[in-house]
């Protein structure tokens, strides 16, 4: 119940150029994953499962598909009279040019939303990491330690990247003593999960002062300076479960294929922390006479008559008889016709591979077929 006093803000304006054609028409937060979800479902569900009732989603560009997906917030029980889901797109005012230069700009533009919200605490999150957390324990740890800000981190080595990410040095007392942003070679093993918990009045003060100094980015310009210069007490909270960063075509591909593994899937989709998403009223998946499916996950609405191995089939995918697909991620409503052979491919929504087509990608780098393409 304590979490009723915490609001969530999700910033979805991250750099997405590494994801190439997959993010041409959508934000990373709206990327389809794991057969029937979008990246943002995990975070919103985690917040709701933790007891958060007020979630603001800051949108930057390409936000049509994200808005369409979140709708009224009903699927997450965020459609109440008080609180609920707030979609916060950029807007033009005298001070505001419409496009945010960073998360601080975005928060400054949405000062009114922060002020009006009744909660005393804010969980500030980015949207490119997929994980299924319950934030209650983090909130308790924050209150127990009496720090000003708590930042979630992980020691998962797969989360470290050259020239990308934020890394912490953490002292024996659990306080963060140094921060490095985008180092060529990360020196600290503690990788920032981009979840920040602090009092709302402190956040508003930091945003106001940051904006007044012409700063744009919360991590680089505010939190890093706070730790280095202002002597504020910033604590680390370790997240120990499964997490994935969606920052490249390869990492997107790896995440989807990893989810097929029951161990990883069960860690991510837990009965006590269900992941909600927009519902599409589809029939169960249909297996026809010639279907041969092994080690794959298949969503409702699929019709399979071919051979499928180590694949993720999203809702409404059709695999004709005689087709062979292996190590592929095939998004919603794509069609694979007779005799087609696919290996190491990502097919975006509604792609069609015509009869006897053959696309074999290298293991290390999947072939990406854009949305609505016919080959």
């Amino acid at each position, binding site marked *: 119940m304590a979490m009723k006093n915490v609001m969530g803000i999700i910033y979805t304006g991250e750099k997405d150029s590494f994801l190439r054609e997959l993010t041409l028409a959508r934000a990373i937060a709206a990327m389809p994953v794991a057969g029937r979800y979008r990246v943002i479902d995990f975070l919103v569900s985690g917040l709701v499962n933790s007891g958060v009732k007020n979630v603001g989603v800051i949108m930057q560009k390409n936000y049509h598909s994200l808005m369409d997906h979140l709708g009224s917030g009903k699927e997450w029980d965020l459609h109440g009279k008080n609180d609920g889901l707030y979609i916060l797109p950029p807007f033009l005012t005298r001070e505001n040019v419409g496009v945010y230069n960073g998360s601080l700009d975005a928060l400054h533009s949405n000062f009114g939303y922060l002020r009006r919200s009744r909660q005393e605490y804010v969980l500030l999150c980015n949207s490119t990491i997929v994980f299924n957390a319950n934030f209650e324990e983090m909130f308790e740890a924050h209150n127990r330690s009496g720090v000003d800000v708590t930042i979630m981190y992980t020691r998962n080595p797969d989360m470290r990247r050259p020239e990308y990410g934020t890394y912490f040095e953490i002292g024996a007392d659990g306080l963060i003593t140094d921060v490095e942003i985008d180092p060529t070679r990360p020196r600290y093993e503690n990788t920032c999960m981009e979840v920040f918990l602090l009092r709302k009045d402190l956040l508003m003060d930091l945003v106001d002062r940051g904006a007044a100094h012409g700063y744009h980015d919360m991590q680089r310009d505010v939190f890093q300076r706070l730790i280095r210069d202002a002597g504020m007490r910033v604590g680390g909270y370790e997240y120990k479960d499964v997490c994935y960063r969606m920052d490249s075509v390869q990492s997107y591909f790896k995440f989807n294929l990893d989810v097929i593994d029951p161990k990883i899937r069960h860690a991510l989709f837990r009965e006590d922390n269900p992941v909600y998403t927009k519902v599409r009223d589809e029939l169960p998946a249909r*297996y026809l006479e010639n279907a041969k499916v092994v080690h794959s996950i298949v969503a409702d609405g699929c019709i399979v008559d071919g051979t499928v191995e180590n694949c993720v089939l999203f809702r409404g995918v059709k695999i004709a008889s005689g087709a062979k697909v292996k190590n592929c991620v095939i998004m919603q409503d794509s069609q694979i016709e007779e005799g087609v052979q696919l290996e190491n491919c990502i097919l975006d929504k509604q792609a069609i591979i015509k009869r006897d087509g053959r696309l074999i990608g290298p293991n290390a780098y999947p072939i990406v077929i854009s949305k609505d393409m016919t080959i």
Partner: protein
Amino acid sequence: MSRKKQCIAMLLAGGQGSRLGILTANMAKPAIPYGGKYRIIDFPLSNCTNSGIDVVGVLTQYQPLELNAYIGSGSPWDLDLAHGGVYVLPPYVKGKQGEWYTGTANAIYQNIAFIEQFNPDYVLILSGDHIYKMDYNAMLRYHIDKEADVTIAVREVPWEEAPRFGIMNTDANNVIVEFEEKPQKPKNNKASMGVYMFTWDKLRKYLAEDAGDPKSSNDFGKNIIPNMLGDRQKLFAFDFDGYWKDVGTVESLWEANMDLLNMPMPIDLYDKKWRIYGRNPGVAPHYVAEGAVVRSSLITEGCEVYGRVEHSVLFAGVQVMQGASVVDSVVMPNAVIERGAQVCRAIVAEGAVIGAGSRVGEETGNIAVIGQNVKLAAGSAVLAGEQRDQ
């Protein structure tokens, strides 16, 4: 004063469905799971919303808890509205006395006040017993066009089966001239589907008269329709020739599920213009493991298949372990088929566990049934036609 609705629907969902045996021990028949992710009541509710009828009163009486929870606010069917929507109507105490619904007509009679809130011209009476897709709006236009007092949806059934139904004898203009309940020697093969479109003023009058008759069994088929016929009111038959399946017995419920495995399906559930909506379980896509075999089946999200599944319908969250096989069967949500167990021609109800190495059902004979949450010990044998509720 609320806004007027031209037509509202009243859905009779209080029936026990006793011929379904242990499957309806804890839930009313309309709540029975069907087709991997639906319940029977999804069909009339989706038909209503697709036909533009946005007030549906659901009359419950027998084991209503499961049904109440399922219907909830009505949002899966877009029936969570500020003006209208779905209303669950159990019997309640009026004045000094309360009474149960004594018959189908009595259930509507006891809810006249509910109906009048919407000031409708027409009231559609539905039952929650059948699988079918029907445009009630087309039926309403026909009813208005014919200036009928009541229009009854009818479907031609095979002559040899006609004695099991209420049969409508009609003239050349589809005017109903006689109604025979389960006739030994049917003169016609047009069976009543239990779907009635009434002009509300007429229905209200006949409900009141029926309530005043102590000898009446307060039933639409036995009392209201014969009384209206006797008074030479205008009764019309509305022909329906689509898929229509009563799922009133274990065998017919099993058959209706097996029907969905045929392509093209006898009832097209892929039709995007007439979707059937239901409450979604909200679980991850299903998983088929290395070494598993799945053919000619419908598999719902949340399932995990390590064994063999052929010609079967698996509901959400079913687990089929290594070496287990499921053939010609219906397995309802979250049931577990443990290692080496064999299930053939059976219905396994929600949450049941079939212990390792068990044999349920046989290749011929009647359908075996395992009840809700039954834990079958390892190595059990359940014969064809047998029902296990513990």
